[in-house]
């Protein structure tokens, strides 16, 4: 048939292979409690939680253009939500994490009403101020331990497993399931109507608005979803630590700076970028983290170089160079003869 008709598809052989690879990884990680020791489980738990934060930050910044340096606000709220519910209600901690995340997502709507009044870098700094307000406020409330913080009640920890090993496995599986839900949540949002609206806004906000895209509402959806996921991740991070203080829960360097570096190095605004960044970060962490301040200095320098010479990061570079795309997110045009 000699028709010149063309079609658009998101799939290619690479995306099929990548999906198989994702499936294999999921099986390997899901079965990890059967084959991995406690140390590996803890490392993987850390990895999953950081990866979740990185993907969420990228979703907010890379896709919705809401450059926040205050995501520690939601980590901290999720953590405090878990500890407060555990102390005062005796619910299972995983249920508490879920309830806390819903509450934080609801809280993020008035936050957005306030912060969306400022644009660009001013939004960034005010998101940071908001996180500082929460940190300073937590220091004031004696019911949640003031500036010395609070510990998870023993009964709450026991609810996850009587032995520490069982507890680690439970938290590991919870972190893994949370990551899967966050990744698929972002993935399906990007494929949905909201995802199309985001692409339109990113390419030209004015044109998108004049074509009937409600830019503020679209950004609000992303902001609230990100708040929900970040709070859940924050709850799980501190469930593993068993203790929370205002300074550790609302820490910009732990929950935002490192996350920014991962995403920027991997590739901001690409789905795969934060994953690559987080993998690299965890591979290097064992060897480089001992250098303390020098480690942070070199991360900062690498991030600056990437932003100047290659703003789409490692993955953006690979993708543009070889026209690769692992996940079926962007449409590509095929003529019928090709397929």
């Amino acid at each position, binding site marked *: 048939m000699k028709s010149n008709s063309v079609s658009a598809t998101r799939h290619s052989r690479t995306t099929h292979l990548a999906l198989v690879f994702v499936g294999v990884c999921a099986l390997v990680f899901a079965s990890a409690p059967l084959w991995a020791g406690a140390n590996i489980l803890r490392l993987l738990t850390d990895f999953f939680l950081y990866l979740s934060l990185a993907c969420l930050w990228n979703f907010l910044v890379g896709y919705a253009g809401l450059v926040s340096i205050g995501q520690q606000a939601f980590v901290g709220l999720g953590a405090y939500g878990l500890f407060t519910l555990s102390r005062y209600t005796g619910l299972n901690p995983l249920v508490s994490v879920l309830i806390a995340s819903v509450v934080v997502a609801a809280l993020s709507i008035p936050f957005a009403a*306030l912060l969306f009044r*400022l644009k660009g870098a*001013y939004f960034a700094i005010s998101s*940071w101020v908001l996180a500082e307000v929460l940190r300073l406020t937590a220091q004031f409330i004696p019911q949640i331990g003031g500036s010395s913080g609070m510990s998870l009640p023993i009964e709450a920890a026991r609810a996850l497993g009587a032995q520490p090993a069982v507890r680690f496995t439970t938290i590991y599986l919870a972190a893994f399931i949370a990551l899967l839900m966050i990744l698929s949540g972002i993935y399906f949002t990007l494929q949905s109507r909201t995802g199309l609206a985001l692409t339109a806004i990113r390419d030209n906000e004015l044109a998108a608005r004049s074509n009937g895209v409600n830019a503020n509402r679209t950004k609000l959806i992303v902001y609230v979803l990100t708040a929900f996921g970040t709070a859940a991740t924050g709850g799980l991070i501190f469930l593993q630590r068993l203790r929370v203080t205002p300074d550790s829960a609302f820490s910009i360097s732990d929950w935002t*700076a490192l996350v920014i*570096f991962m995403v920027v190095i991997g590739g901001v605004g690409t789905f795969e970028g934060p994953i690559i960044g987080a993998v690299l970060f965890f591979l290097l962490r064992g060897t480089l983290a001992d250098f303390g301040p020098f480690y942070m200095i070199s991360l900062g320098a690498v*991030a*600056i170089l990437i*932003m*100047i010479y290659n703003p789409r990061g490692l993955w953006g570079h690979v993708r543009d160079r070889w026209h690769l795309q692992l996940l079926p997110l962007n449409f590509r045009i095929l003529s019928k003869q090709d397929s």
Partner: protein
Amino acid sequence: MVWLNTVIQGTMLGGLYAMFAIGLSLIFGVMKLVNIAHGDLIVLSAYLALVITQTMGVDPFVSLLIVVPIIATVGYLLQRGLFNRTLGDDLLPPILVSFGLSIIIQNGVLVAFSGDDRRLQAGPLEVASLRIGDTVAIGLLPLLQFVIAVAVIVVLHLLIRRTKTGRGLRAVSDDQAMAQVMGFNNRHMYGVAMALSLGITAVAGVLIAIRGNFDPSAGPARLIYGFEAVIIGGVGNIWGTLLGGIVLGVVQAIGGAIDPRFQILAGHLVFLLVLALRPSGLFGVKA
């Protein structure tokens, strides 16, 4: 009368915040750049003054003669070498580059000077005060700092309104392409704006280091106070920014008088309140 003292103290402190803020709003006005490392560069100036006062045995006020030119030059070079490459339609690179710079400076200072609290010593001036009546006393040092702050802002205002450089800055700020057609070198003008911005904040950075302790992690708070003063006063209004700084300083002083832990939080809350009720700022022109 205790309250009058508190308000006066806050006003004096607010002058310094206004200087942080003027530096921020100057570069935002000229090239729409927000420098996240602003606060860390303020702290860097304080460490520079510390080295100079210790090695040369001079007074912190004298050290300004060396600190300000150095930091202004650093600003010019940073703008030409780094920030000029990030300017464009994408708002991400300038924010993330200055964020990276902020982390580098914080950790660099930590390596060089350790995390200990430092302070600049200004001798007998620190405790001298001016008595007005029986109950009101104004510290000579805060008063001097406030006068310097207002003087610096007046000089900046005159520089922007009356000189050729100021005309260039205004031209570049109004219309980049047209300014270039008229023979201004935009990249150079951006460098000049950053040099002025950091020169002014270096003065404030050294002055505030005589008044209270600083450590490598003090930068972000300085950035936030400057930013809050800009928003409270209203973006793009030099006198509004001065008043915004004073409002912030007074609110912090009153908060601190109620409960020392409440000082910083009170300032943040007033900032959020202004954002909620009057996003164009208290003294800004309504958009």
